[in-house]
């Protein structure tokens, strides 16, 4: 953690100069006022400069990346982590040799890790982040699989003129199916059951 002290005519100016030196923005630092300073007479006599101590808070995203790295190393798996941030959405992408272990059956390990990352990144932070974790393009592959499954099951529902229930899935996977079948005519989709057994039902 880096910290510097800076001075200026006013507290605001002092903070501003500290931010410039640290090359950062105000929401990533902690400001401690050492001396508020004095204006003095006509700004000429008896004026005292303001002093502030500015501490660069450790970036939540970097912290979470380290957290993820630590978990993976402790699982005895070697993987590269690429982080991309868009707005308040953080995407972690894993790549490496033994990545299948990290994905697990139907992505359950990947989803569990994603949930843990979500908790770690949003713990006592002011900024809220959404997290997604991907490994070797698994999410895209899964999306394709889900979309073809959705089409198949929708046909089945229409053909048999009966409700078709799918197996339980996490919310973001259900979203993919809802979206895939939204424009399809003659069927309706809804979710039934309580988490973690919530599943999609396709109704003709």
């Amino acid at each position, binding site marked *: 953690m880096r910290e510097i002290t800076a001075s200026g005519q006013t507290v605001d100016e002092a903070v501003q100069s500290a931010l410039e030196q640290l090359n950062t923005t105000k929401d990533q630092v902690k400001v401690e006022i050492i001396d508020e300073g004095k204006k003095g007479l006509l700004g000429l006599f008896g004026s005292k400069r303001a002093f502030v101590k500015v501490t660069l808070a450790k970036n939540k995203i970097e912290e979470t990346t380290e957290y993820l790295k630590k978990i993976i190393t402790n699982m005895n798996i070697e993987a590269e982590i690429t982080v991309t941030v868009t707005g308040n959405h953080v995407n972690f992408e894993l790549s490496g040799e033994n990545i299948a*272990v990290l994905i697990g059956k139907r992505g359950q390990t990947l989803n*569990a890790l994603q949930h*843990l990352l979500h*908790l770690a990144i949003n713990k006592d932070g002011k900024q809220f982040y959404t997290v997604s974790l991907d490994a070797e393009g698994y999410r895209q592959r899964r999306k394709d699989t889900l979309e073809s499954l959705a089409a198949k099951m929708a046909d089945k529902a229409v053909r048999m003129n009966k409700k078709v229930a799918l197996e339980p899935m996490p919310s973001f996977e259900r979203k993919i199916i809802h979206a895939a079948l939204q424009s399809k005519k003659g069927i309706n989709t809804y979710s039934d059951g309580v988490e973690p057994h919530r599943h999609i039902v396709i109704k003709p």
Partner: protein
Amino acid sequence: MKALIESIVSSLVDNPEDIKITETEEDAKLVYHLAVHPDDVGKVIGKNGRIAKAIRTVVYAAKTDTKKRIYLDIM
């Protein structure tokens, strides 16, 4: 294994120094017992045990050198 459990849990709780992990070996299984500060219990269990389930999923996925089944006991 202990290191893995600790690394997962330490970022979720407010009092990481109060994490205690004990290991007991039985015939066919290795049981890890996790205890945290009383205020942090909810943070490792979660709504409907969602966090506990996520921790277990990750722990069970890790490779081990023993052939024994691993169990994670929380509190």
